[in-house]
């Protein structure tokens, strides 16, 4: 059992009448890459800012390695932040920026020099130490911001959408780099993002936030495959959300009365939503044999969209329009607009959520 790096208990933040964070409980383990994921205004940045010390919680406790820090100012917390805007000091050189924290901690000046050099080498910017931030590209500024935070060897590194200002190619490269860096230095990362792909590819665990609440915490696969709420299902990736009514513990009825197998703990008669990923559907001819134990519903192809590597099918069924995704590879049959098909999916590919 690893130690807990950051522990939030009942943490809330109100700005006047506005509740930004509404009672969050969360434990982040030592050395974990943890992402807070949610749309803008969901409270994820406020949560991060409370851990950093830029905001004080209205209620609740924030502990870092067991020590209560909720009301400590940022300079007394063993955490460092990488800002979305990088917030590099424009009047200092790259080396002065990176050395600032060590200087404030009154580290001996030759130690500072060594550690700054090592930190800049780590982000491959050793040769730009005398440059001013304005002379660097966005990607380089990003690395300086990382080095400036990591050089202090914080107990927890907080990252506020650090890749948001970079273009797509660079962002993807930095995702890999960040993850590798985190594994190398072994520091706990808390990463705030609204980009589900970033969260899925980098994180050990993800916490999905909405309207100030932490809706679900889990490993990326768990969040993607087994969303526990309609919001999480909808927010992460593409998904079909079909209204349904619980018949019994093993069956739900879709719109139009079509009954399919689903494991649900809800009372019979409860209105629920069935969530299925497009790639979990398979399309069959009307006269084809269907694997045992699969759910099925008939429909008509309303549209086929070609994406190169995949086809998207919009299929009109009695339960509503279903979007299915099929890989474009030899042996997979393609259907045309207006064709009748059977949409097939396995029961385990289906999440039943309440609204």
């Amino acid at each position, binding site marked *: 059992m690893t130690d807990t790096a950051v522990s939030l208990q009942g943490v809330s933040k109100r700005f006047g009448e506005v509740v930004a964070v509404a009672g969050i409980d969360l434990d982040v383990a030592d050395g974990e890459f943890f992402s807070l994921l949610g749309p803008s205004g969901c409270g994820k940045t406020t949560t991060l800012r409370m851990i950093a*010390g830029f905001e004080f919680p209205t209620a609740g406790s924030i502990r870092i390695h067991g020590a209560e820090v909720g009301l400590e100012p940022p300079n007394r917390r063993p955490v460092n932040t990488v800002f979305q805007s990088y*917030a590099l000091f424009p009047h200092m050189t790259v080396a002065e920026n990176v050395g*600032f*924290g060590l200087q404030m901690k009154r580290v001996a000046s030759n130690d500072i020099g060594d550690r700054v050099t090592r930190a800049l080498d780590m982000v491959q910017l050793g040769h730009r130490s005398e440059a001013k931030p304005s002379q660097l590209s966005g990607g380089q500024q990003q690395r300086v911001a990382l080095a400036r*935070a990591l050089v*202090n060897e914080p107990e927890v590194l907080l990252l506020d959408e650090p890749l948001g200002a970079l273009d797509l190619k660079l962002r993807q490269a930095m995702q890999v780099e960040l993850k590798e860096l985190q594994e190398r230095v072994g520091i706990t990362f808390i990463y705030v993002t609204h980009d589900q792909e970033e969260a899925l590819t980098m994180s050990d665990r993800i916490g999905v936030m909405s309207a100030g609440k932490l809706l679900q915490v889990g490993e990326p696969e768990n969040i993607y495959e087994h969303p526990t709420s309609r919001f999480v299902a909808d927010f992460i990736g593409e998904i079909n959300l079909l209204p349904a009514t619980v018949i019994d513990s093993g069956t739900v009825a879709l719109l139009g009365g079509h009954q399919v197998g689903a494991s649900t703990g809800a009372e019979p008669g409860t209105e629920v939503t069935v969530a299925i990923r497009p790639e979990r559907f398979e399309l069959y001819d009307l006269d084809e044999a269907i694997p045992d134990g699969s759910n099925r519903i008939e429909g008509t192809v309303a549209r086929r969209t070609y994406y190169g590597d995949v086809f998207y099918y919009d299929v009109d069924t009695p339960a509503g329009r279903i979007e299915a995704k099929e890989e474009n590879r030899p042996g997979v049959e393609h259907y045309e607009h207006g064709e009748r098909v059977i949409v097939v999916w396995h029961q385990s590919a289906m999440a039943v959520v309440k609204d």
Partner: protein
Amino acid sequence: MASVGDGGGEGLSEAPTQRDRDALERSAERADSKRGLLVALPAYAYLALFFAIPFAIVFVYSFATRSRTGRTVLEDWNFDSYARLGDPIVREIALRSLTLAVITTVICLLASYPFAYYIATRRPAIRNLLLVLVMIPFWSNFLVRTYAWRVLLGNSGPISQISQFFGGEEVRVLFTNTAVLIGLVYGYLPFMVLPLYAALERMDWNLVEAARDLYASGWTAFRRITLPLSMPGVVAGSILVFIPSLGAYVTPALLGGARTTLLGDYIVGQFLSARNWPYGSALSVTVMVVMLIAAIAYFRAGAKTA
């Protein structure tokens, strides 16, 4: 003076290989600078008419001779007026003016910085209200406001009365350097507040948070981040206060005493009562040159720290 006309000055140094492209760029640049000149023309004309030409006349007069009757003779050009600048009386007056201008600038800076900081960190609506309050004094005439200080600071004025009411002494500040200082600080404070506000309003407060995140205390973050980044405002405000304070005429004339002559007074005296225009001109030219050099040096130093 800003050269408004040379907007596209970077094109030439790129040395493109094709000659016609080179020529095209040059003619585009010419057209550009022509347009720029046209826009700047009214400003240039104004400066020429009301600054350059009068200054040239003053400059020429400073080498002229004063006749016995006080007329200025535009012949026998000489440096006599400049020779008189070494007089002890000039040194005394210059030093007094300089001291007063420096003290005025420092007081304005110390008083304005916290206030500008306060304004810049308010919500936009409150910010605008406070800025209007700063500028309200401009709505009435400077002379009138200075006369008001004569009443306020007078021996039987309200300040003196309040002091006496609480058992203090009669306040005798009018017609002293203190009164001049009060008048100057009062008059030039907005010129310090506004550039400081402009500099602080542009501040990226994320930088201060970053400094706090990197273990700086609030005071250290201010000293290492906010203050250096607001230096352009400090420099601009200081120059805007220092220069008019050094040459101030109205305030010392109304609030100062006979024994506290300042540069402005002294120069005016040469033109009006002593009728020594060449000497007055030489004084003016010297003050201007000194201020110009000081301003350039100060701007340079400010640009370096910022």
